């Protein structure tokens, strides 16, 4: 049996901030998220043995790559440790965590800092939309197209419509729930925005159709933000728990994970969807792999989910892929309140990507931090009562890279 990898806390920046308007660069963001994480977890920089940074497109948004190296600027004691930047589109933050976990499981390191960093408001929306196109097969799917990603996910909407039929009101309800949850999250980007289901169902200048079907309220946000978590070995966790008077049983750890890659082109995914039980078979595989590794039966053993809702249709798909309903019946979990805050399996108590914000390379790390907060009982106003085990699904591209984590404790 592999050794357990624990999460000892972390930090998230306020996703409502606009760092470009503040005149600040990516170094400031890295500095602040590290400062927040070290302060919150009461860990000294000198204890860190490696740093993994998730980032999607620093070189496009800020003309700055090589972000692993920037993390050691925080404190001279960090000079000399291994660092790396990881990129897998919107799943970059999760990939950084997978690498860190592997190093701890392999016994290479005892304590690793995982960062997710993305600064996106440095460019106008059209340019940023084009940059996001590099998460798909740019040359074949995005070149010369404005806002290519909503259009790619319009096609997922089309596939669902063709196979099972989609009632738009269910997508509007997903958006409404995410915005509503975000109001309880003091770091959520949209926490003070106006939203109602009637608004989500409306069309006009204030809720434009972005591609051919999905509207502004169906989309996640363009966000500046960073998140950090500390991953630790059992040995380090024991000494940390002793030092801070913590009960070993209550410390969250990674119980399971799944990582599966689909063909990058959406046409190929659409073809697979028509032949499979699940519309996104590789997403389903990442989820079932994580269930197996966590040695759980399925979603009935999960308290709540932080899923990738880059668009409402992505969360719509996640509902059935997690097993909350049979394929094609995700709408039932929307109608019967299963996914709401007081439902049997709330989805995105944090507000997710639609309500909370989606700094692309940060999202996976932010989801893990939220999962940690739920299991540790530290989620404040968006705490799911008694959350014991939380699943995250982080998707890169048009559901191409799929990463699932299951975080729980022994309490």
């Amino acid at each position, binding site marked *: 049996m592999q050794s357990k990898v624990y999460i000892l806390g972390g930090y998230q920046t*306020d996703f409502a901030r606009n760092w470009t308007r*503040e005149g*600040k660069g990516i170094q400031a963001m890295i500095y*602040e998220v590290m400062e927040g994480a070290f302060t919150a977890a009461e860990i000294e920089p000198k204890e860190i043995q490696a740093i993994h940074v998730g980032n999607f497109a620093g070189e496009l948004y800020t003309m700055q790559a090589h972000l692993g190296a920037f993390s050691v600027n925080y404190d001279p004691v960090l000079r000399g440790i291994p660092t790396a930047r990881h990129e897998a589109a919107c799943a970059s933050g999760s990939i950084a965590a997978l690498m860190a976990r592997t190093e701890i499981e392999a016994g290479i390191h005892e304590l690793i800092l995982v960062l997710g960093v993305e600064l996106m408001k440095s460019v106008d929306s059209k340019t940023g939309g084009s940059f996001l196109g590099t998460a798909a097969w740019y040359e074949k799917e995005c070149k010369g197209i404005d806002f290519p990603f909503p259009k790619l996910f319009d096609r997922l909407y089309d596939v669902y419509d063709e196979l099972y039929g989609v009632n738009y009101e269910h997508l509007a309800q997903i958006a409404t729930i995410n915005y509503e949850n975000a109001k309880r999250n003091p770091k959520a980007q949209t926490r003070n925005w*106006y939203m109602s289901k009637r*608004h989500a169902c409306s069309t006009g200048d204030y809720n434009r159709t972005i591609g051919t079907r999905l509207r502004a309220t169906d989309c996640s946000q363009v966000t500046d933000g960073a998140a950090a978590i500390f991953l630790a070995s059992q040995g380090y966790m024991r000494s940390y728990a002793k030092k801070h008077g913590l009960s070993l049983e209550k410390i969250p750890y990674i119980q399971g994970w799944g990582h599966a890659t689909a063909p990058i082109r959406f046409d190929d995914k659409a073809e697979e969807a028509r032949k499979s039980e699940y519309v996104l078979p590789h997403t389903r595989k990442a989820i079932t792999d994580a269930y197996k590794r966590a040695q759980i039966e399925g979603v009935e053993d999960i308290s709540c989910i932080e899923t990738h809702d880059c668009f409402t249709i992505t969360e719509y798909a996640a509902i059935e892929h997690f097993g909350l309903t049979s394929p094609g019946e995700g709408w039932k979990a929307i109608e019967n309140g299963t996914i709401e805050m007081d439902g049997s399996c709330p989805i995105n108590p944090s507000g997710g990507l639609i309500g909370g914000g989606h700094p692309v390379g940060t999202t996976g790390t932010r989801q893990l931090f939220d999962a940690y907060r739920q299991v540790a009982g530290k989620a404040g106003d968006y705490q799911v009562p008694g959350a014991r085990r939380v699943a995250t699904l982080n998707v890169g591209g048009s559901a191409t890279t799929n990463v699932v984590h299951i975080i729980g404790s022994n309490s």
Partner: protein
Amino acid sequence: MDRIKKMAVLGANGTMGSLSGGIFAQAGITCIFFARSPEKAQRGIENAVKQARSDVLRDCIIPKTYDALEEELPDCDWILEAVAESLPLKREYFSKVDRFQKKDSIVSTISSSLSIEDMAKECSDDFKSHFMGVHFFNPPGKLLANEIIFHPNNSKEVKSFVSDFCEKMLRRVNIVTYNTPGFAGNRIGFQLLNEATIYAEKYGVEKIDYLLGPYTGRTLPPLATVDLVGLDVHKEIVSNIYEHVNDERHDTFKIPRYVQKMIDKKMLGIKSGGVGGFYRFNDKNEKLAIEPLSLNYKETEHFVDELIEKIKLHLHDGDYKKAINLIKNEQSDKIKLVKHFILGYISYSYSRIGEVTPPEIGIHGIDRVMSYGFSWLPPSAWVDFLGGPRETMKLIEKSDLPVPEQLKNLPEGRHCRIPEVTKYFIAC
């Protein structure tokens, strides 16, 4: 919270009336927007729609003229008054409200300068017991601060209901303030803004805005802020404080003569369009700045001070400690002026604890109003950044400013409770 189902805005054609009413509409409350004509009321609705960025808001706001007060007010659970800032006018409206309102409905005013007690003086006891100041900041869609100024006749239940409602339903950050001129935010904020107008006479408009720019913990430079507020409104707020308050910085509330001349010439700032204020744009869209002695506009001077640019660079990189140390330790004339304003802001804020906000909350009320109402770095965050109360007191003493008693009694350690205050340092 369900108690408020329908509300009315008097003066819904104005910016603050329409935007404040819009916040109620966003909470799902049916609103009646009263104005002198249906067109003006409709304009208010469009303001609220634009603030919410949602067309559906239009469906829950009804435009009415004041002819419908008698018919509509008895159904309203909350009446928000936002008519022009004139005591006789407000009293005239309150007398009507008192006559038509149902028992127990809440009546609030958005006044930022008139006395709460004076406004309700001629009204019934029931009116007084449900009347208070609920002062949002402009624009309320972005600035969440809400100064609540209770009337002495408000019961504990009314106070607690209004506070809870504003926080939970309207998503406001409440700051209970006393019934003093300018309450908390304007008293402290406009002290600095007016002192900047005084200094501009000697140093020039662009130099003051450069030295006290956003890198000193504010979204906009001070004189650009006065242009945004409007010089007439600035004078109204500042003169009211000058006339009714005599504190240790009383002289800094006196409107400089050149500013009065600008007001006389209707050079009121952004609202005056091409006429301008401290700044204006010429036909070629070039930014010009006023020369206070002549009131002529000239091309803006672009100051570049090596030290200040260095401070901004540290802020850009997130190295706040290095940036603050430069402000703290450098002794050039320019930095001394910067320090005078920063330390003056700290000194003036701490000295107001107990006078404008309840003493038991310490600096936290003033911190909240300055950050959530003005988007300025709150005073206690400055104390933290400068190294704590002892260090700050030494700097205040060195700058020949009054050292507040409230600072002397503070233990060492961090005091600011506002999250992520670094966002107020703008490195531009």
